[in-house]
């Protein structure tokens, strides 16, 4: 583990018991996060990206879910094997999260000021007055006009964009090592999204916070992240630096995704051309077949693809790069 690595996830496995069988939502996920790095986890619904995030922080509701394997090493310790109480103390302080819906993440009956100061008082043992002053300072920092007065407003008096900015502020107020942002801008308009992503970028680079950005939007990761993991059916199928991923994608799923999104910069040049589309539909996570889960939809699938899951093939380079695909692995 290099000095630079702040979080290492190894072989994470989380499953859910449902009426239809066991859903392997996260099936052997491993990645490293360096200090100050912004890592993107990209996938569609059912890929397991959100469950990965929740598993790291041990927020999986059990029953019906359970993290059944793997390690999450932070600060030299495995979060999955620590007592619940210790992990709880880390949430918000060492590792912070923001979620998609800012309305439900904030308590509707407490003022914004109280919610920010609560975090500060809890983790930094600040006095009430000091915390209140810091809260107003935070609101100014995130661009809320008339911060002094608005600190005493309630969440519903803020717009969606402002609430999400408050969430970012709360999340970063305690200077965590890691910020996990789970689809933070999916529910927001694109101009507000630009504001929020800008804010996250600036604040996190100022404080050297590592960020894990979970999203389905490839445009967002292109602008925000240095490294990216692409997930499909509970597994990471490709991992690369952002440039490598976009300009030299190796996994057929990654290629398919990139080819199938309408490109704004190609506006007016499409003519009668059709978008590429990946045939078929994402697999059901119950009773996944043997082999690579993408094989049924893959234009390059070989015989072995339906028989065994491909091992990870690593590539040399400045940044860690790997892909799980039989096109690159040696069949033995």
């Amino acid at each position: 583990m290099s000095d630079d690595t702040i979080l290492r996830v190894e072989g994470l496995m989380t499953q859910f018991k449902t009426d239809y069988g066991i859903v392997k939502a996260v099936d052997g996920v491993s990645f490293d996060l360096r200090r100050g790095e912004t890592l993107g986890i990209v996938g569609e619904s059912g890929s397991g990206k959100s469950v990965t995030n929740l598993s790291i922080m041990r927020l999986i509701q059990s029953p019906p879910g359970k993290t059944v394997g793997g390690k999450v090493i932070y600060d030299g310790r495995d979060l999955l094997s620590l007592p619940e109480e210790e992990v709880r103390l880390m949430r918000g302080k060492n590792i912070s999260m923001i979620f998609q819906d800012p309305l439900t993440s904030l308590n509707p009956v407490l003022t914004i000021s109280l919610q920010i100061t609560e975090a500060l008082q809890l983790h930094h043992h600040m006095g009430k007055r000091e915390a209140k002053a810091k809260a107003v300072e935070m609101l100014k920092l995130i661009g809320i006009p008339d911060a002094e007065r608005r600190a005493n407003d309630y969440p519903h008096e803020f717009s969606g964009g402002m609430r999400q900015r408050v969430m970012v502020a709360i999340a970063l107020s305690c200077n965590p090592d890691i910020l996990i942002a789970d689809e933070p801008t999916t529910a927001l308009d694109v101009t507000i999204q630009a504001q929020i992503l800008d804010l996250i970028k600036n604040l996190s680079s100022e404080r050297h916070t590592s960020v894990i950005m979970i999203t389905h939007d490839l445009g967002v990761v292109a602008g925000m992240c240095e490294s990216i993991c692409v997930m499909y059916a509970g597994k990471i199928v490709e991992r690369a630096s952002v440039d490598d991923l976009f300009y030299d994608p190796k996994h057929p799923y990654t290629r398919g995704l990139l080819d199938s999104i309408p490109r704004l910069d190609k506006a007016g040049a499409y003519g009668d051309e059709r978008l590429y589309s990946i045939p078929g539909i994402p697999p059901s996570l119950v009773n996944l077949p043997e082999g690579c889960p993408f094989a049924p939809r893959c234009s390059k699938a070989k015989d072995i693809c339906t028989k065994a899951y491909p091992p990870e093939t690593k590539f040399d380079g400045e940044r860690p790069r790997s892909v799980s695909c039989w096109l690159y692995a040696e069949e033995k």
Partner: protein
Amino acid sequence: MAATDTLLSVRDLKVYFPINKGIIARRRVGWVRAVDGVSFDIKRGESLGLVGESGCGKSTTAMAIAQLQKATSGQVLFEGRDLSKLSPAELRRARTDFQLVFQDPYSSLDPRMRAGDIIAEPLRIYKRAGVVDMSDEEIVKKTETLMERCGLSPTFAGRYPHEFSGGQRQRICIARALSLNPKLVIADEPVSALDVSIQSQILNLLKDLQKDFDLTFLFIAHDLAVIEYFCTRIAVMYLGHIMETADSGTLYKEPLHPYTRALLSAVPLPDPKKERSRRRIILKGDVPSPSVERHNCPFFERCPEATERCGKEAPQLRAVAAGHEVACFLYEGRE
């Protein structure tokens, strides 16, 4: 341009929602101006995109055009006839010419009906009303043809909506919309609720169907990339007004209205080098409330290029080039 070329003509459409206060005796205290004077034409064979962020009024406009939402004032002329002036029976008959595809594939299908029945329903309704003259077998046959055309196996006709994936449900919705052979398809955010890899399937399908069935589209979305891909012309909406209208390539290459520019600059591109080098226009603040009565430019508060005049008067939508209209004082005198 011959008048018959224009399929749909919207003139100064306004949709205001009353704000009522009080529990016992409700009194009107104001209006939410969801659509505040929108005008545009759609020619036969065109795809017009209405794009804007939440609250801009694009969906309300679509619903008002489709006569599913009562307009407060204005005209919706379909092939020259004002839809709001038709009697209920005449309107029902006219509906066969314009059909909708809805956003949410989970709620736009009756969970208690089988797929085949959902698709056949419009035909059956109009058969009972005497407008459609098909036998029951013919209707079933047509349903099967439509399903195949939309990428669904006819063997699935007996299944219920919850047995299909989101993309498949949307296909059912599209097949239903086509059953009456409409001239105009109003698609309200048809791919927004779908996964990325399914979006392209549905967009391709719609494009194919447009060609085969000679359809005209009114396409509503908030995703500019999708709109640019699908539509031939685009109208940008903000706070109930149209800010700019242009051909799709032109809108991207030469955006005139400051809001259009900000919108375009905010869209993240899946291209890291471009992302790193672009300069974003970050708008300050949030969208103002649509319940405030205003006689100035709706974008005044957030416009990086606002002048004093913008705060006092409202600019009109004017053509500055062939097919390119903009509502902004910056371009006054360029007509």
